[in-house]
């Protein structure tokens, strides 16, 4: 409770600072309007259908990209992680592909799918967030307790049962971390793609506001993207607590 209160006070303080800086002439009002004007612009945006369409488009690109990346990352991760030969064969390729910044693929996706299409941005989102999930899943699968593994073998569990009762519970905390990382990365890439490629969404609206010299509106939209990020983080954390309720890291009532 105290933490929440202090957090709110901090947020309010930041808002006041943001409001005062331009009013006191520390920065030009033309380039950073006072927070009050930004909030007014936000209220005004909420009246525009175009704004809600943009929010919807960003959520679709983000959610779809994240969904595909998580599903693919988990399946590929469990398969590769479970087969040692596969793991050794793909390790170097993964380490080569993973560091490629997704934005470097912008020229490629523009040629393949055209600018302003949602597919182009989706490819960027999936590419960036897939590795986050995959790497975590690989670590998770490798973390299986050898004694537990031997026990499973001794009980002659079949492949499906081993994945379900041995690999999956071990990997789950890693998967949760991977999904949480991927969630923020996916939002970054969704907005970047929209800004640079012009696919529909909040990123595109920020670009349009900038090209219209509508400075308070631009900051208002940036604020909305930030709020989306915060909400997503809260949701993934809540999901994590729910899925890992049995795990020692979440069951803090049990002394470690």
């Amino acid at each position, binding site marked *: 409770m105290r933490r929440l209160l202090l957090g709110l006070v901090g947020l309010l303080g930041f808002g006041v600072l943001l409001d005062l800086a331009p009013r006191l002439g520390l920065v*030009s009002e*033309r*380039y950073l309007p006072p927070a009050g004007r930004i909030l007014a612009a936000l209220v005004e945006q909420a009246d525009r259908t*175009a704004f809600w369409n943009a929010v919807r488009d960003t959520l679709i690109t983000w959610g*779809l990209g994240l*969904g*595909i990346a998580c*599903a693919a990352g988990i399946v590929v991760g469990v398969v590769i992680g479970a087969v040692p030969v596969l793991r050794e064969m793909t390790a170097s390729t993964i380490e080569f592909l993973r560091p490629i910044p997704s934005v470097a693929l912008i020229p490629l996706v*523009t*040629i393949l*799918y*055209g*600018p*302003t*299409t*949602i*597919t182009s941005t*989706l490819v960027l989102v999936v590419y960036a967030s897939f590795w986050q999930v995959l790497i975590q899943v690989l670590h998770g699968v490798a973390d299986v307790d050898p004694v537990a593994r031997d026990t499973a073998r001794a009980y002659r569990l079949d492949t499906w049962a081993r994945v379900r009762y041995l690999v999956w519970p071990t990997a789950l905390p890693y998967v949760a971390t991977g999904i949480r990382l991927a969630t923020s990365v996916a939002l970054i890439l969704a907005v970047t793609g929209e*800004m*640079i*490629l*012009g696919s529909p969404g909040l990123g*595109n*609206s920020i*670009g*349009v*506001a*900038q*090209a*219209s*010299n*509508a400075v308070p*509106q*631009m900051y208002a939209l940036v604020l909305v993207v930030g709020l989306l990020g915060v909400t997503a983080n809260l949701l993934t954390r809540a999901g994590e607590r729910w899925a890992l309720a049995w795990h020692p890291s979440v069951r803090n009532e049990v002394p470690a």
Partner: protein
Amino acid sequence: MRRHLAVLMAAVALLGPTACGNSNEPAAPGQPDNVTVGVIPILDVAPIYLGKQKGFFSKRNINLELAPAQGGAAIVPAVVRRQYQFGFSNVVSLLIAQSNGAPVKVVCNGNNSTGVDGQDFAALMVKGDSPITSPAQLAGKKVAANTLKNIVEPVVRASVRKAGGDPKTVEFVELAFPLQPAALQAGQVDAVFVVEPFQQAVLAQGGRKIASSYVDAAPNLTVATYFTSQETLTGRPDLVRRFTEAMKESLAYADTHPDEAREIIGTYTQIGADVRAKMTLPKWPADVNRQAVQALADAALGDGLLTKPADVDALLP
């Protein structure tokens, strides 16, 4: 697990059609043709938005979709690859594309300067307290251009030349329009070449116009046009004809109804009503000004923007 699989399949199924959605084939008889036009969300394209709203395209059996790209650079390649059937681009970009062998063909005029010195939708501007009063003084000075090696360079040079200065020594600095007012104010550049609504922004911070470069470049300069690819032109001549007709009607309507044009600009940009009321609109004649395009092509060749002459007659309709 089965449910999880179903979600994955649904995601893949959703992704599928968007990846290969294409409208390069004629629609079934009686059905409208789906047409995507690559535009930039600026005031220049108000006629096409207005024409869509007024039904000039739908009455010609065209289901028009406008794809606002961030910056025009991506539009020419997307039209050539037929991801868009038509596009909006400034004349110099098209001249460069054409002289490099890209199969582009102008189908209709886009927008022109007002032709009135001092009252155009674009201006060469300096800071309020700048000692520069004439473009001739820009020799050896820094001028911001939104894109280098494009339309800004020849037209600004035209202003400098006309005022009796040395156009060769002007130094161009690449800076996006939204950044130019601040850069001018901070003294990072000596002059900027801005279009609306940034002309109003520079005026609001006390800046001065020293030339209307589009006007100096050629009388009633055609700044931008709508174009298509040779493939679309030869493959679907009827569609190109209907699009051109609808576009000409839209241009004529916008040119005679400036208030409606100002109104519609507010729907696809975020330009506030106060600025929309003040800003200078371009002219929207239905036909391309051939002589002006030729003059621009000659200037671009002289300035080294074009490495070989562009074939203006082949580019224009």
